[in-house]
């Protein structure tokens, strides 16, 4: 067994160094950076356009000084209830000049601002007009007028309020159900995304050895199971390098964000944050090894790059299927579907990672990891046997035999 592992490590080391030592690896490592750059450039461009539009939008109130003071006070109070980004356009107070109806109409034609709604006529005969896109703004003006009128009726000074309450912040001690589910789903999604990006690489991993005939040396010196395992570990090392690189950057980024204790505790996983993250890493390894082993075994049967390219689509669909199953399970923890997803070996790592968010029990994870390891061994063994039978015996490949079978002829 130790010899088997040592041989696997020799192969893993070669694969890892050969992959990491190429210029293509730098491109691979920095690929998310290109995505981030494009997303940032595109996003900020779109925001700039949207912002410049929002900046010039106005709600105009034509009112004398006294009424304007009440309206402004109401605006200050009510605007505070809106989250950033969805607040109504800024308020613009104008003094009445001549015929206010004419003045109001003229506001809509101004070229320096985009007035979407105008209120005029004072507290006794208020009128509101709005242009296209100004219906919501007009309702806001109506609320302001109502608030100003009620304050005046109550005989309050402008800015004073009938009730005075100082809200107290409370720290949440229990995670919310929604928070846990969304945390579970996030873990699932991150795991799926990483596996989708990285495990698919294993499909072409034996193509190099088949092309340069090194497979003959490997097959003679080392059990094929060790070759398969070594290849998987080597590529997993590459994947871990990738994750470590971006993980460090992401951690650094999160450390710069202001801490929001309340939000963090709403998301606290049932199993504990440290265990949850540790399990996520283990389940990523399991998911990678399981799916990677399947792709490796299937890809090893292919005779050319073209066949390998053809395989990438069914492989992606297979992964999507596992993601679908596991995410359905994450949405309904404890259901039969969740149990199926947790037991089915290829969706199990994803489903179990999500389970940690809502279930504090540890033992199902120990059992699941053992179960998944068993399946890694099964897939590698079956894959190696299949390869030995299908490829090393120099007989026709699986695909050729399949094609021959479909045509009803012997290969």
């Amino acid at each position: 067994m130790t010899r088997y592992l040592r041989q696997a490590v020799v192969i893993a080391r070669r694969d890892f160094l050969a992959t990491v030592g190429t210029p293509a690896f730098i491109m691979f490592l920095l690929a998310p950076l290109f995505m981030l750059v494009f997303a940032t450039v595109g996003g900020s461009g779109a925001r700039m356009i949207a912002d410049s539009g929002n900046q010039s939008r106005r709600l105009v109130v034509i009112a004398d000084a006294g009424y304007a003071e009440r309206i402004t006070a109401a605006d200050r109070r009510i605007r505070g209830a809106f989250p950033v980004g969805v607040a109504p356009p800024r308020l613009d107070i104008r003094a009445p000049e001549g015929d206010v109806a004419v003045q109001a109409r003229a506001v809509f034609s101004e070229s320096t601002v985009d007035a979407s709604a105008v209120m005029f006529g004072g507290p006794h005969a208020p009128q509101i007009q709005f242009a296209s896109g100004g219906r919501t703004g007009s309702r806001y003006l109506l609320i302001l007028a109502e608030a100003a009128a009620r304050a005046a009726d109550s005989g309050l000074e402008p800015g004073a309020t009938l009730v005075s309450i100082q809200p107290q912040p409370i720290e949440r001690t229990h995670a919310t159900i929604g928070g846990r589910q969304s945390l579970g789903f996030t873990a699932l999604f991150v795991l799926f995304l990483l596996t989708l990006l990285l495990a698919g690489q294993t499909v072409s991993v034996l193509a190099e050895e088949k092309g340069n005939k090194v497979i003959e040396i490997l097959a003679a010196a080392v059990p094929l199971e060790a070759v398969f395992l070594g290849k998987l570990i080597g590529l997993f090392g590459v994947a871990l390098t990738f994750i470590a690189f971006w993980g460090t950057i992401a951690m650094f980024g999160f450390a710069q964000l202001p801490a929001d204790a309340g939000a963090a505790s709403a998301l606290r996983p049932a199993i504990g944050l440290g265990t949850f993250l540790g399990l996520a890493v283990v389940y990523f390894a399991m998911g990678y090894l399981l799916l990677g082993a399947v792709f490796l075994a299937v890809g090893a049967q292919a005779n050319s790059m073209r066949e390998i390219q053809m395989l990438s689509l069914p492989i992606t669909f297979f992964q999507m299927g596992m993601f679908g199953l596991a995410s359905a399970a994450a949405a309904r923890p404890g259901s039969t579907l969740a149990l199926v997803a947790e037991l089915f070996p290829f969706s199990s790592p994803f489903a179990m990672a999500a389970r940690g968010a809502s279930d504090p029990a540890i033992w199902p994870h120990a059992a699941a990891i053992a179960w998944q390891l068993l399946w890694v061994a099964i897939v590698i063994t079956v894959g190696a046997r299949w390869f030995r039978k299908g490829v090393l015996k120099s007989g026709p490949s699986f695909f050729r035999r399949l094609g021959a079978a479909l045509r009803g002829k012997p290969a």
Partner: protein
Amino acid sequence: MADQWALVATELVKNFGSKCAVDGVDIRVPTGCIYGVLGPNGAGKTTTLRMLLGIIDPDSGHRELLGTTRPRSVSHRIGYLPEERGLYSNMKAREAIAFMGALRGLPWAEGRKRAEILLENAGLGFATHDKIKKLSKGMSQFVQLLGSIVHQPEFIVLDEPFSGLDPVNQGRLEKLILGERDRGATVLFSTHIMAHAERLCDRLAIIAGGKLRYEGSVDEARATLPMQAHYTPRDNDPALAALLPADAVRENGSWRFPVPESGMEAMLGTLLESGHGIAGLSIERPSLHEVFVALVGEKAVEEMEADAGEEIAA
């Protein structure tokens, strides 16, 4: 058995689909000898070697390598140069050799150290830190050969080791094979070039059409055919033919015929008495070539030698 025989294989059979590649081959390789597997291309040599090493399993038959029936369990004691040569082109020569050693359980540092010595001894010291893709085909083949012996295996299997090498490197390889034998290793190699087998092998097997045609020492192989006498009389009397064996062939005033089972003495007496005289007489052992022709037929030998000629020309 393990002491006397490094390898014993009996009745090996392998079919690929409906084609029978190897059909009942028996091979016994004594420990510490150089053993040749000789045969034309497509005779089943490579399939036989792959079965002996456990890369593929035979459909039937028995094999015992270094005392075990599971050849793969002793892979660290075996060195193998496959017929299909291949190395990672981006590896340096020294690393490639150490990598192949590491696969067979040799520590990397020791592998690198030995690689340097092996490359130096093979006259390739200048290429130690060159990438494989920069080496010529013959040189990279030699690097692979060194990689297959770097862990100092007890049993070395070389599949067509001479093909693709120029005469200088062929000479180096012969020296290397003899050196490994002197170290105590058992060497088994396949070839379709008879000269190498004749010069190097203590024993050999001749395979053609998937069947074993001969197994034994080179001398025994030659002994399967009678000695050849080459006789030149003093005169050129046609009546002489009656005194010689019926299958004697006339060649430029000389006669060539197999030495009779009873020996040459009686015939020589008759020739001297008849007064034809003896201007020249030589008795030669048949060459391996002649044995081969007798065993596998003229056509197979011609094809084999045509392949060998092409390789040497290449």
